[in-house]
């Protein structure tokens, strides 16, 4: 990967510089404003929210909304907030993540290096799959899981995440593997390495960035999923987003914007942390996976 392009700006306050930084600052305001408002709202008491301006920082900082969102908010007769779903989300996330990435990476590898007659057709069908609204596939998936005897188990949900993550992930892996130098394969095949040998010994070691991208995309997608979670899990395995929906959508007397915002932030914390922590790796993977076709 090479560095940034373009002429190096000479003067600090050139007209171009003012334009570049000015635009970026302006856009950053658009991007940061919602986060700012969310955090501020979550730290205010309800009376202050109703009185004041949503952009102002809290006069009196309170963490009560966070406590309530995590441990006390009620849905139905359970009053234990988001905490109930957090570990369920983790238990759904990990196997889904591993399985979906394993399957999609093998697909991408086979599609880029071991093509056979018809393999492109399957790939096109897969890409079309990315465009099908998931609601349309609900009944077929339900029927499929029932016939596999997986409906209601956590493995059914894992399978669903694997299936619906497959189109985009396969696309990314396929593009990345296709960008690797061809000599790598040729040499290995001359040496007699087979399908799995090349995958494990040659491809995997050089593919960390694209695995990172896939992992980030899947962590976000699976963690944020509400619909599949509520349809294919059971109450004892409901992910955190089901509690989020319940907190946000059930008004108990007054609409508690501060608790809603705290709950929203708490639910988004893990994917946000993943993004903040892996910015550079993500960029490297994207560079390799999305660019070369």
């Amino acid at each position, binding site marked *: 990967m*090479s*560095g*940034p*392009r*373009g*002429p190096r*700006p000479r003067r600090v306050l050139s007209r171009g510089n003012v334009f570049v930084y000015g*635009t*970026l600052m302006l856009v*950053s305001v*658009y*991007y940061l*404003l*919602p*986060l700012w408002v*969310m955090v501020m*709202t979550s730290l205010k008491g309800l009376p202050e*929210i109703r009185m004041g*301006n*949503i952009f102002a920082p809290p006069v009196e900082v309170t963490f009560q909304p966070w406590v309530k969102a995590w441990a006390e908010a009620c849905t139905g007769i359970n009053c234990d907030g988001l905490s109930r779903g957090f570990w369920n989300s983790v238990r759904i996330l990990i196997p889904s993540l591993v399985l979906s990435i394993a399957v999609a990476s*093998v*697909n991408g*590898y*086979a*599609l*880029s290096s*071991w*093509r*056979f*007659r018809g*393999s*492109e057709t399957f790939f*096109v*069908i*897969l*890409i*079309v*799959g990315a*465009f099908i*609204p*998931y609601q*349309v596939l609900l*009944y*077929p998936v339900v029927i499929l899981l029932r016939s596999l005897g997986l409906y209601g188990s956590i493995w059914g949900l894992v399978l669903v995440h694997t299936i619906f993550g497959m189109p985009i992930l396969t696309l990314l892996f396929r593009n990345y593997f*296709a960008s690797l130098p061809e000599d790598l*394969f040729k040499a290995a095949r001359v040496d007699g390495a087979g399908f799995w040998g090349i995958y494990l010994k040659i491809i995997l070691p050089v593919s960390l960035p694209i695995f990172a991208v896939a992992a980030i995309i899947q962590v*976000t997608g699976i963690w944020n999923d*509400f619909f599949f979670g509520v349809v294919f899990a059971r109450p004892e395995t409901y992910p955190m987003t089901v509690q*989020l*929906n319940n907190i946000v959508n059930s008004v108990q007397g007054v609409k508690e*914007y501060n608790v809603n915002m705290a709950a*929203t932030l708490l*639910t*988004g914390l893990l*994917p*946000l942390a993943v993004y903040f922590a892996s910015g550079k790796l993500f*960029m490297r993977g994207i*560079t390799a996976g*999305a*660019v070369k076709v």
Partner: protein
Amino acid sequence: MPRPVRLLRNLQAKLAMAPMIAVALVLFLGGPIWTLLHSFTDSRLLPRLRWVGLDQYERLWASRKWLVSIENLALYGICSLVGTLVLGFVLAALLDRKIRFENTFRTILLYPVALSFIVTGLIWQWLLNPELGIPGVMRGLGWGAFDPLNDPSLVMYGLGVAGLWQGTGLIMCIMLAGLRGIDDNIWNAARVDGVGVVKTYLSIIVPMMRPVFATALVLITSGIVKLYDLVVAMTSGGPGISSEVPAKYVMDAMFGGQNLGQGFAAATMMLVPVVVIVVPWTYLAFGRRKRG
């Protein structure tokens, strides 16, 4: 290379791809066919094969809500496609100008990607709250009444602003990655020839980034077609039916109305443009490959 029996060639690759092939055939091909088949029936709460011909389609195209849904999707789709591509590309180009704090800016632009549409909807609903949010502040400044989520003529733009906020970061990243892939010599040559920066981008760089735009298009358009969560979280299709979208029509018909046949007819209509446009386009954009 010697050719053994065709079926056994690359047998391990075929076995390894079996899960994908099964999914592609059973769900992504079988699912739509199953849907198409049931759109010719009067299935209500449970799927059943009692044929009614094209009745469901006649009713669909006579439905005001469906027509509004399509108009809305077209409006949102065009705004979102153009907006995301332009904003994504411009931001990527700006970040690529050897600036300071590139990482900070990139993180700021990318973080909304980590949030779900439901969360995005909730945040923007709050920001656009008529009394306490931006409209209230604007009214306070004497800028007149402006209430995008409760104004039928503005509501799709309200959704668009939120969608853009959530989706542009990833596209910007992909574009930036594409720009980083451009050879330094191209820039040097352009400079030697005296071509301006903007013109270099438009006439040289953009055409070179065709594959990048292809990936970006898949991501953006597949998101647009599936637009549902954001609408439900922000407006539930309101005010009235002024922010209804096709995916919501499908869900409303299938479960709200317990009229699966109608929902499947609408779903089939959603798939028609996908098949007509996406299939040939996918072959063109991704089909030709160097290794075989």
